[in-house]
């Protein structure tokens, strides 16, 4: 993994302070606020009287999912970059690396970065987990769903960046529009593809009353849907990059960077 320069960039980048970390710290504060607000306000006895457990874990996981998706979208659109990290266009156009290899490494790098963000949220998630009574398996499903969802949004961000280019204003609005449009209406209309609905189903109180045969499909459907969407987005990204590469006579911009990498 470390032999791949895109992944190495991510591994080195996350140990350095930069705007990316500061941005995610902001999102982490938001997650902490959510955790604080959803922390049980009454005692165990009152919870038992109301017959409703705390929703702290579901809220924390939803917040982490949204934060990771938003951050991945922005990272894909290259609004935030890790220190020393180069853009996808640079890797595709300025280096002789195969597009397949570049994209594989790009996805792997995104996964590593998402895992790091998840690790940053882990104390919050663990706190919520202890009081909410969720199961490890259910939590793992939710986090896996957040990771694959972030992957999809990263690719969406990258496509936005490749299609809109360096127009900061358009890119800024497009990124937020995608998040709002895909996160809210799609989740509303097709709850099976909504991370919020998914978390609510898997970690909510109805999880215990769901029939056993329905337990697996729910989780699988979500992961499969986002994996499928990610594949489609990757194909689209590949075509965009290929077209961009074909449009280039040679590695003009960033030639030095390409040489440095290939050497």
């Amino acid at each position: 993994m470390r032999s791949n320069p895109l992944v190495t960039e991510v591994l080195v980048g996350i140990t350095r302070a930069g705007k990316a970390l500061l941005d995610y710290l902001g999102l982490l504060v938001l997650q902490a606020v959510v955790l604080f607000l959803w922390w049980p306000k009454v005692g165990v006895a009152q919870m038992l009287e109301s017959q409703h457990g705390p929703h702290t874990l579901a809220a924390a996981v939803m917040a982490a999912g949204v934060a990771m998706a938003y951050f991945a979208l922005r990272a894909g659109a290259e609004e935030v970059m890790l220190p020393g990290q180069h853009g996808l266009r640079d890797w595709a156009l300025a280096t002789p690396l195969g597009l397949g290899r570049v994209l594989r490494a790009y996805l792997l790098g995104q996964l590593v970065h998402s895992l790091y963000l998840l690790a940053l949220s882990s104390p919050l998630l663990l706190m919520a987990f202890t009081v909410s009574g969720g199961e490890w398996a259910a939590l793992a499903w939710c986090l896996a769903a957040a990771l694959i969802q972030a992957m999809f949004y990263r690719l969406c961000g990258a496509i936005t960046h490749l299609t809109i280019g360096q127009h900061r204003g358009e890119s800024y609005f497009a990124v937020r529009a995608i998040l709002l449009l895909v996160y809210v209406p799609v989740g509303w209309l097709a709850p099976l593809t909504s991370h919020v609905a998914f978390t609510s189903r898997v970690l909510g109180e109805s999880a215990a009353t769901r029939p056993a045969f329905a337990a697996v499909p729910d989780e699988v459907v979500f992961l499969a849907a986002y994996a499928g969407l990610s594949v489609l987005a990757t194909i689209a990204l590949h075509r965009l990059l290929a077209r961009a590469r074909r449009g280039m006579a040679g590695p003009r911009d960033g030639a030095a960077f390409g040489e440095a990498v290939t050497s």
Partner: protein
Amino acid sequence: MVANGDMVTGQGRGAPHRARGLQSRLQRLADVFLLLALPCVPPPTMAASTVDIAAVVGFTDTYQPGRWTPLNVTVTNHGGDVAGELEVQVTGGDELRNRLFLTFHRRKLELHRDSRKTLQFTVFLQGLSHPLVIRVRSGERVLARAEIDLRTRVAAERLVLVLSRDADLDYLNDGAANGLRVLYPHPELLPVHWRGYDAVAAIVVHGISLERLSGSQFDALHKWIAQGGILAVSGGPDYALLRSPRLSALLPGVPLGMTRMDGSVLQRAFSASLDVSRPVHVNRLGTFRGRARLRAGTVPLIVEHALGLGRVLYLTFDVAGYPFDRWNGMRELWLDSLRLPPAPKLSLSAPEPVLASPLMPLIRAQTANFASHATVFYFLALYLGLLLAGYGLSARQTRRRWLASLWSWAPMVLFAAAAWLLFGPTVFPRGANAVAAALIEPFPDSIYARLALDVGVYSNRSGALRLEYRGAEPVLYPTRQAQRDGNAENWVFGEGPQRFLEPLDRRRYVLHQLEGEDVITFNLNASVHDEAAGLRLVLDNASGRTLKDLWLVFDGYAYELGSIEAGARVERGFVRRTHGLEVGEAPWKRLLKPPPGRPVQTMEPTRILLERKLREMRESGYPGRGHALLIGYTENPFRPAGASAGWPRQEQALIAFRVAALPGNAAAGKAGKGLLEPGNVDSDRQSPGVRDAAAGANRRR
């Protein structure tokens, strides 16, 4: 070439033919093998047909709705070995409002080829419109299923059970409201749990030995008498049966032989209408406990002995023999002797108000709570602050790159571990919890006590909640409050050697509650003497448990006793002004202090338990005039066991022993034991007519 070619062609034609022939032979062989193999693997439907289910509801297939009743299920296996479960499904609840709930009673079942097994359940049959469903399961597979129609097995009257080979007490049958119905059950099918006698008003034993009963059946009978049941034993020529260990333990006295009675003497004792033309032999008694309710001269004819809250009557004559088998006065004699109390209200549907459950206050007092918001805030602030500090350190581009790398990972690793330690299972245990509040009321002159239970299970994570328990074998039912509100849950009750209970609702943070009752062995004997100098208490704690923070309440005063160790015998005198703490009628309930190391809130469940008792006894008061009350704590007899032994639990058990205060020195040295008196003491020489009036007056009192 042609010939060759033909030959080749011929070979070409013949080879497929041979091959096809071989193939068809192989196919036929395979079919034969398949047919031979088929019987070796019986399909599920065939396996199911080899198990038969037969059931007897109540006594001789007769039960009273709204009462606990025994259910004997016989499973016959005509096929191979069966290892599975026998399940009885009972539908309860309010049918009119369609608020039904299910209870499943399960027992393990192992049946060898061509064998039969009878298992008994104690079930609460609330109505009759829903059949009982009985299943034999092996894993998920149902091997046999039977539906028992309850409509044809109903009796509205209270039951009188006659255990006899030849006695005919059908004259006691009375179809009127609150009437009686006489049944003659087989002794082997008697209940194994005392609650199975719920619909029974009295039991008559005639000419059989109780040694025929199993240990659990005899215990059930003994407990039923102790909690208020009435047993009448008829004498007869075969008096050796009455000298058998079990009967002699219950009877007021042991027969020493037979004595001859003249007809005229018997007529004076019973009635002139008794047709006695020749002498009659009755059992001869030596000393006996209790009192003689009827005598003929010096010969006791009916002797009665209190056993706990119940009574045992010994009729020294043969109730089914000459001349009593043809006497018209037998019905009145029975009713007069048995003095059946009015039928109690139906166990679960009684309309009295129900107080809140003591479980919630118990949980509130004893359960670890969530970390406070302040703790959460400081923790989050520290974590985010540390991350920010790490960011600042890295941003300064320090030469120590390794320190920056460390800062990027260290806070999250440290705080993840800290989050688990500070908020995790060590301070807030995850998983199932058991809650139990118990009220133990020892019966006077008995080794038994009534146990009223409130049991709850809950979990802070989703999943099955199966509580295995020991120490008591209560009958359990959804709380009366839940039944009235129409939100009673569905439950599974496991009977047999390892008892368990399991709600079918698997949601987390839901308290699943049950009420239960049992009669347990709790040998506590006490006598209180109201003497001129003050009170004198004799207490013999043979219960095997330490009694903590014990108080004696009598006549508006409370006296502190402290702890009484198991096995201790205490005799103490109290002077009202010196030792007594003046309390009113009700405030004595505040006397109890929380057990050592427990917060004051733990008193709330105790208050609820006593308040319930007070409401139950509202007519006579609690403890009532002329009665003293011993109240204190002890360990809860209902304990999680087996796989649930490690469950965190919140529990409390309160003892409330109501003792009749004896005036002066009337029973000095007596600590609750029945008096052993010579046969000529405390006899009731009144005629049946006078006795009727006296009995009526007693009832009115």
